């Protein structure tokens, strides 16, 4: 039997990718996937349990929960995507510059990074949203401020290694300027870790966005956010426990998908870890170093 390529032998990668694809698909095709108008209230159909008509039941306004979850995917993934892109962009540039130029530039940029790392993420994000007010862009901005630091640290570390590589020295000897070296030579070779971080970061962003919404500082109702549905669902724990359970499960499944995908990507993109993982599969409890 022919051996599968490494990517297809990695269970977390496959499972994660399938979960993410399904949820992204639902988000993109929300108008088709939703069975009901997401905002349509029907006071005669309040608190209905799951049925053929309402797959996941209805809420306190008789709104269809499945449709709210589908549209909620669009909100959560949208904000997660914007904020992750923003954080990756800023963090990568900071990391590249700090790692390449070193010296006092590096010192200053890294001290700033440390300061932002010094705040518990959700607290800082909450404070920023509190100050700016609600809205998609404000929530995304708060998450960017909180999450760019990780990219900066990782990209700086890879840049420190890459700038000493022979091919970078060669490019410099050929007269390439810093911009060209950073973006044409170093950046393409740092993409692996950035992609892994971004995949895990999407999961973290979904959790953070839902947390803000849960606390009532996300998008204002009637936006069908998962976090807010979970939150008002807690008020109806006795009549309709599925409201909170289902929306929490939606958040967890999405985050799980991104985490598995990120873990899988790390194994595939990092050859050192890959060999270790492969060795582990063959001889359980192997003692060889």
């Amino acid at each position, binding site marked *: 039997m022919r051996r599968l390529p490494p990517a297809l032998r990695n269970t977390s990668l496959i499972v994660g990718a399938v979960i993410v694809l399904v949820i992204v698909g639902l988000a993109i095709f929300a108008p088709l996937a939703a069975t009901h108008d997401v905002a349509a209230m029907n006071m005669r159909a309040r608190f209905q349990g799951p049925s053929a008509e309402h797959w996941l039941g209805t809420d306190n306004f008789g709104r269809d929960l499945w449709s709210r979850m589908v549209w909620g995917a669009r909100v959560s993934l949208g904000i997660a995507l914007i904020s992750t892109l923003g954080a990756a962009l800023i963090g990568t540039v900071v990391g590249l510059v700090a790692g390449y130029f070193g010296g006092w530039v590096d010192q200053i940029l890294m*001290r*700033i990074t*440390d*300061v*932002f790392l*010094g*705040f*518990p*993420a*959700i*607290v*800082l994000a*909450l*404070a*920023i*949203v*509190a*100050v*700016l*007010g609600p809205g998609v862009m404000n929530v995304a901005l708060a998450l960017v401020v909180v999450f760019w630091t990780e990219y900066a640290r990782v990209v700086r570390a890879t840049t420190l290694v890459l700038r000493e590589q022979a091919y970078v020295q060669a490019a410099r000897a050929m007269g390439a300027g810093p911009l060209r070296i950073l973006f044409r030579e170093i950046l393409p070779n740092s993409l692996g870790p950035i992609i892994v971080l971004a995949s895990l970061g999407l*999961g973290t962003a979904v*959790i953070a966005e*839902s*947390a803000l919404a*849960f*606390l*009532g*500082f996300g998008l204002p109702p009637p936006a069908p956010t998962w976090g807010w549905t*979970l939150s008002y669902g*807690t008020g109806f*724990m006795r009549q309709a*426990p599925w409201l*909170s*359970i289902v929306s*929490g499960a939606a*958040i*967890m*499944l999405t*985050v*799980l998908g991104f*985490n*598995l995908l990120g873990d899988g990507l790390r194994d595939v993109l990092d050859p050192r870890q890959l060999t270790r993982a492969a060795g*582990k599969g063959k001889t*359980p*409890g*192997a*003692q*060889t*170093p």
Partner: protein
Amino acid sequence: MLSYTLRRLLLLIPMGIGIVVVTFGLMLLVPGDPAAVLLGQEASAEAVASLRRSLGLDNPWYVQLWDYFTGLLRGDMGVSIFQNQAVSAIIWSRLGATIELAVAALVVATVIGVALGVLAAMRQGSWIDTGAMLFAQLGVSMPVYWLGLLLMLFFAVQLGWLPSIGRGAPLTEAFADLFRGNVATLQHALTYLLLPALALAANSAAVISRLVRASMLEVLREDFVRTARAKGLRPPRVVWRHALRNALLPVLSVVGVRFGTLLGGAVLTETIFAWPGLGQLTIAAISQRDLPLIQGLVLTFALLFALVNLVVDLLYAVVDPRIRLD
């Protein structure tokens, strides 16, 4: 060790200044006139002007920053707009509850995380390993407020074993009572603490278990472990006494970082379980847009986090002398 401690302490100064600047910067982010925003639309012009004066908003920003900074050095965080009390006093009255919850969660997370990680590493590839890592994956992905809710639904509402919300006596008092021979206070306090601490701990327990497993697997391959086995020590002793000690080093450094996550998670956990700490206060302050209080809270969270990291770094240097050399 002394020079390392001093160096580490000195590093706190630029960090602290940076944290204060960011916290202060929050005020500058407010769109429009903060005084008008804070008082709402019905406020009279005089009220707005007087709040502007008392917040020092008429001064240029660098004067405001200087005043804020010098105030902090005197322990003055300003006055809460809605509670009309010193921010530092309000925060001080709530601090204990949050530290208690975070520390309890850290203990629970470390115990569960280390136990699962070691078991998984000892039986690599077995169902225990798979189960532990599945738990870890779920623990990392589960939102803390959802887990809290499920725990509450099951143990408090369904089974009625534990109280669902609130807090018993502070643990410090409970322990004092214990020394007077009274166990009931502590029991009572622990029944309130258990569910929030568990909910808050799950995520960290998951992260720690993955780390312990990976670290244990590396250590178990090392020569000194082989030597210990070769000289006939029984496997549990090799694992728990010899290997675990070395495997715990990287874990210690993560515990400091986890504390920040725990403090953040405390905001959510406290909201669900009506735990009267800083997290609940934060939500209230943010709902009312009580800016001085918000700033004071953000600052307190960051300083707590920095202090814990300092302690962990120093501990790390004590445990692993190699650290002090670089």
